[in-house]
């Protein structure tokens, strides 16, 4: 067994889902033709000054509060200097000595959580594309607001790092703070890892891992690094303090730069930006707007609706799904039934169409009405689902829909009698089997009648009618 304890800390960059950039009115969506979403401020033209975007600060505060971090009453923007073509001003506006928030934690599982060191706001850099003709610079992304979340070195395994990221993404998505899509770059992660002998209190030399483009890559790179450092230490060697780049294809990391080569960023307070002073009342207002967090909501659903953990996990994936569920529930339905319809019918439609539940064509009220029709027996389950699909493209009440579809339930015995006779004629063996006591054989006959009525026949009436018909044909046993 491994003689070392693994110590991992993560630095996660998350793009805030704002309309405009952190310091300019240009749109923050980094899509579109290169260099079309660029203001003079993003270009760092002579004479421009940053114009702080209050919405971005509010969203960053929301992130901090969702993670239990303490928003500082005064924080400052700093300049971080380095020369690179993706950085128009020659410095990035970030926060250094006084970040927006400190502390907080992310739950890894029911018993463990990882503390957060700090959370700060900064602007993104542009994007470079290296071609045969030279390097192309796209500044659409330059100035997009980010928060950097730095964890304490509390993680003890690569799988804990994976769990940390999963939970972090869940909370941030749930609260509408970020899309958190690693493939699209709206979430990025660097990992620090060191090993120390079991029981030791002093951390070993840490290595920083970069170029981690998915949660899986984070885990794989950490696992590789865990093995590599173990081998170095076991052979009596020393781990070098360095930054390593992960290559997912080869499944290994390579040194990028040593500690001695670390750049001097020459941080200092940005004189263009006054200190960011946040009143307690503002913090309270943002906290109030935050609403319920996913864990709180899950606990409430468990308590109030007695749903299974699997069902609840689906309902709290994002805030709007749970909100929609609760709107249906407000009309007094059975929780498990609503949950089943949501998971089996609504979510697949959303998934296939790319629609948001907020604009789902069937309102929660109408779904409740439909479920009521099924619950009272006015509609069969099969017909209920036909009405559901009918309503996806029409602005109708379920009652109007079922009439239009001719799906009113058939209760009238005389209407159904010829169909019962047809069923026993078509399936004489089944009829005989029922007569000889094999009740299960009745299902085939029922199915025949349901197909004939396209599910409209009332199952209770059909059941009795078939038994009566068979009894009449074969005589009472």
């Amino acid at each position, binding site marked *: 067994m491994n003689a070392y304890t693994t110590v991992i800390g993560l630095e996660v960059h998350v793009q805030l889902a704002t309309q405009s950039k952190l310091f300019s009115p240009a749109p923050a969506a980094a899509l579109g033709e290169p260099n079309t979403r660029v203001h003079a401020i993003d270009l760092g033209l*002579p*004479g421009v*000054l940053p*114009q702080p975007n209050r919405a971005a600060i509010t969203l960053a505060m929301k992130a901090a509060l969702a993670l239990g971090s303490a928003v500082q009453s005064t924080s400052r923007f700093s300049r971080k200097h380095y020369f690179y073509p993706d950085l*128009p001003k020659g410095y990035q506006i970030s926060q250094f000595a006084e970040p927006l928030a400190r502390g907080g934690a992310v739950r890894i599982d029911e018993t463990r959580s990882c503390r957060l060191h700090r959370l700060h706001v900064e602007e993104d850099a542009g994007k470079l594309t290296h071609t045969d003709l030279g390097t192309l610079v796209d500044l659409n992304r330059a100035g997009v607001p980010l928060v950097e979340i730095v964890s304490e070195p509390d993680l003890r395994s690569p799988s804990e790092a994976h769990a940390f990221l999963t939970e972090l993404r869940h909370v941030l998505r749930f609260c509408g703070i970020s899309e958190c899509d690693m493939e699209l770059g709206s979430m990025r992660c660097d990992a620090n890892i060191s090993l120390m002998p079991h029981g030791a209190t002093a951390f070993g030399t840490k290595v920083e891992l970069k170029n981690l483009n998915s949660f899986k890559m984070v885990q794989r790179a950490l696992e590789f690094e865990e093995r590599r450092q173990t081998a170095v230490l076991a052979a009596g060697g020393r781990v070098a303090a360095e930054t390593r780049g992960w290559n997912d294809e080869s499944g290994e990391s390579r040194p990028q730069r040593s500690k001695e080569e670390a750049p001097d960023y020459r*941080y*200092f307070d940005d*004189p263009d930006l006054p200190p960011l002073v946040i009143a307690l009342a503002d913090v309270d207002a943002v906290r109030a707007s935050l609403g319920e967090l996913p864990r709180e909501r899950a606990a409430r659903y468990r308590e109030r609706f007695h749903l299974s953990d699997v069902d609840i996990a689906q309902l709290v994936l994002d805030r709007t799904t749970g909100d929609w569920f609760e709107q249906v529930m407000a009309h007094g339905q059975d929780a498990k039934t609503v949950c089943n319809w949501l998971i089996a019918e609504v979510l697949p439609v959303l998934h296939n169409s790319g629609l948001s539940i907020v604009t789902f064509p069937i309102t929660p009220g109408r779904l409740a009405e439909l479920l009521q029709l099924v619950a009272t027996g006015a509609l069969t389950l099969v017909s209920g689902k036909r009405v559901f699909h009918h309503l996806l493209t029409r602005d109708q009440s379920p009652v109007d829909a079922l009439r239009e579809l001719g799906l009113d339930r058939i209760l009238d015995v005389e209407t159904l009698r010829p169909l019962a006779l047809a069923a026993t004629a078509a399936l004489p063996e089944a009829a005989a089997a029922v007569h000889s006591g094999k009740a299960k054989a009745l299902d085939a006959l029922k199915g025949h009648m349901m197909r004939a009525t396209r599910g409209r026949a009332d199952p209770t009436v059909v059941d009795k009618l078939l038994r009566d018909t068979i009894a009449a044909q074969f005589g009472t046993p």
Partner: protein
Amino acid sequence: MTALWRLSAATIARGVAAGSFTASEVTAAHLARVHLLDASYSAFVETWDERALATAAAIDEDRAMGRPLGPLAGVPVACKDNLVLAGERTSAGSRLLAEFRSPYTATALARLQAAGAVLLGRTNMDEFGMGNTTETSAFGPTRNPFDPSLVPGGSTGGGAAAIAADFCPLAIGSDTGGSVRQPASLCGVMGLKPTYGRVSRSGLVAYASSLDCVGALARTAEDLALWLDVTAGLDAADPTSIAAERPATPQLTARKDLRGLRIGVPREMNGPGLDEEVLAVTRTAAQLARQLGAELVDCSLPAVAHAVATYYLIATAEAASNLARYDGVRFGQRREGHGRLEAMMTRTRSSGFGDEVQLRILLGTFALSYGYAEQFHGRAARMRARLCADFATAFANCDVLLSPTSPMPAFPLGSTHDDPLTLYLCDALTVPASLAGLPAMSQPFGSTHDGRPIGVQWTASHGRETLLLQITHVLQQHSEHHLRRALP
């Protein structure tokens, strides 16, 4: 009748409004004078004749159509070459930006345009504002209209020379450590540096962001009050901008004399080490103020002794940061590095920036570098706070401070090239107000035995530009120093 080019901004605005003359006549007269004389002084880097005449014609048409005119309608204004104007070149005195054209206009200029001012052209300056002789400009030096063998001061040397030579009644400048006040003093004109943030910096090519102020030069306090009223105030494009006070112009004549005014005379700014003739001129101003009812009080600003060192640490650190963007990637004249990025950036910056700018970038980079930032930049920031406290103490006991503007009068071109330290000491009396963000003015109050102008500096507490304008206005009503002209 007085030549149009000799009129003040206020007189021109009144005359245009009254129909005594047209904006087109005023503009043509000023342009003609520039073209006749500026070859000897190089106050302007470029004049915008077509634009200026078109603006003037539009104002004349507005008047003909009975449309309302702005408070500076028809007034020719010179703009320092570090304020951007959409479509025109802005070079900040640098080869690196020789062909740079901005897509947007500086707030300070946009507000002038909205007030009806006629922008005449851009004036010469020390490269990126770094210098106090206008000799570091990539476009050659500007000469002092009182004596072309002398420097005009800097970095707004072009603007100061333009006022001294009667090329225009109003010139916009910028003042980081004295760049409006010192050339005003050396050229015998009035110069105002407002409170930090009073005028938006949006569109001002940055030198040192925590010190940069847009200021103005003119011949009268009245013209500077007019300028301040149209230019000052909050601007969404500058997060450090502050709201305007009540307009200064209507309050300008509120004082007939200086009774009740307490004038502090800081020992550290009026003592040994200064030119005797400069000190004599300051005493003249103090005497006149006392005759007009002011009370002179002794005061002390101990931290002033460290102001120059503090200023050069803070200003160079910020400058190194602000000038990092000139890397040849997006603008500036790129020098190829044969496929190597760092080589391209190095070549571009080494050939594009002049020596003084490169020196200050190196000093500033050093002051912020790992292991030295606390020792240099950190200490400077604390000394700056001490200086602010010194000023606060002084202003508890007086309304305004009086000192010379510059330790010495204008000196010959080329005389300080081997002596940067002496040159930096030129700023000793102007950097204190810059570091504290206070409003300050330079006012001509005499000259040396050989006719070189000498100015005095008035410094007030935050937001009290109006008090400075009132004092200098009263003094102008009782003295004639500002009427002395350099050229016929």
